[in-house]
């Protein structure tokens, strides 16, 4: 994982890591607005008070993002139960468009959306968050072997989904 420089400006750091944070935040929130809120909250807290702490900054930030995401999801669920007719929000793409065409990206996003959340979060932390299995397991409070097996199930399910999509055009 990339080292953190004390003299680096927050904008440079955020430009490099913000997309990963936002993508992971979207695994634990129900809308883009919530994901942005938790990234903002976690990043501002990190930059003001936690960037001098030992450890990997991205892992620390992902922990904050996950906690904030789960908190906000719980609050949203309680509110949604009260306001049953709330309008669904257009979530926006998870990934940037591919130069060779957007169908494949859309198919992958769609397949990701159908994965069980506990598999999707391991996949996001490992591939786009850049964490090891041990770090991802630590984030999620599960044994590393469980993280590894969820990751494997996620890849298998994704491959199955994408192959089916290819077969059916």
């Amino acid at each position: 994982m990339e080292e953190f420089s004390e003299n680096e400006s927050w904008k440079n750091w955020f430009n490099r890591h913000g997309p990963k944070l936002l993508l992971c935040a979207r695994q634990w929130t129900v809308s883009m607005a919530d994901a942005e809120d938790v990234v903002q909250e976690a990043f501002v807290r990190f930059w003001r008070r936690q960037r001098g702490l030992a450890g990997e900054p991205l892992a620390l930030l992902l922990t904050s993002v996950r906690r904030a995401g789960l908190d906000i999801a719980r609050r949203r669920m309680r509110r949604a139960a009260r306001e049953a007719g709330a309008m669904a929000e257009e979530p926006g793409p998870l990934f940037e468009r591919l130069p060779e065409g957007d169908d494949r990206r859309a198919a992958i996003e769609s397949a990701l959306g159908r994965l069980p959340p506990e598999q999707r979060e391991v996949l996001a932390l490992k591939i786009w968050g850049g964490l090891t299995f041990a770090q991802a397991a630590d984030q999620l409070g599960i044994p590393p072997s469980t993280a590894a097996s969820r990751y494997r199930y996620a890849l298998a399910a994704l491959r199955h989904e994408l192959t089916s999509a290819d077969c059916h055009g």
Partner: protein
Amino acid sequence: MDDDFRDLEAELGRLRPAAPRRELVSRIERDLAPRRAAPRRWLWVAMPAAAALAAAAVLWVRWEAAPAREAPAARPAATPAMKPVAVRDVLVGSRDEGYVVLADGWPARRLREAHLDTIIWKDPRSAASLQWSVPREEIRIVPVNFQ
């Protein structure tokens, strides 16, 4: 991880997470902007209190030091058993500042009074005494009944 998944992992790894919207960056920018120091209104309360405490400390130290220099043999070994023996409140002056209207609409008179509070301590064993006078200003709001 299995070779089976290597291609898929590589494909997923090539996907770049979408960049945050400009609005999110602006929100963080606002949060991280240096804040201007708030006016220190509390100083107006804290400074007189600190001055009063400092004055009390000076008085106490001087009182402690003086008998030791003058009559060290006569001073008891234990800490002085000073006890407050009298408290006096002298009204030095009063000024009527006219009528004011209270929050509930009732008229009232505003009186500004100057007091001199005096506290006297004595040590019954040595007959030493300490007198401390503190000026105090009091503003009294007295509701008025015109009936």
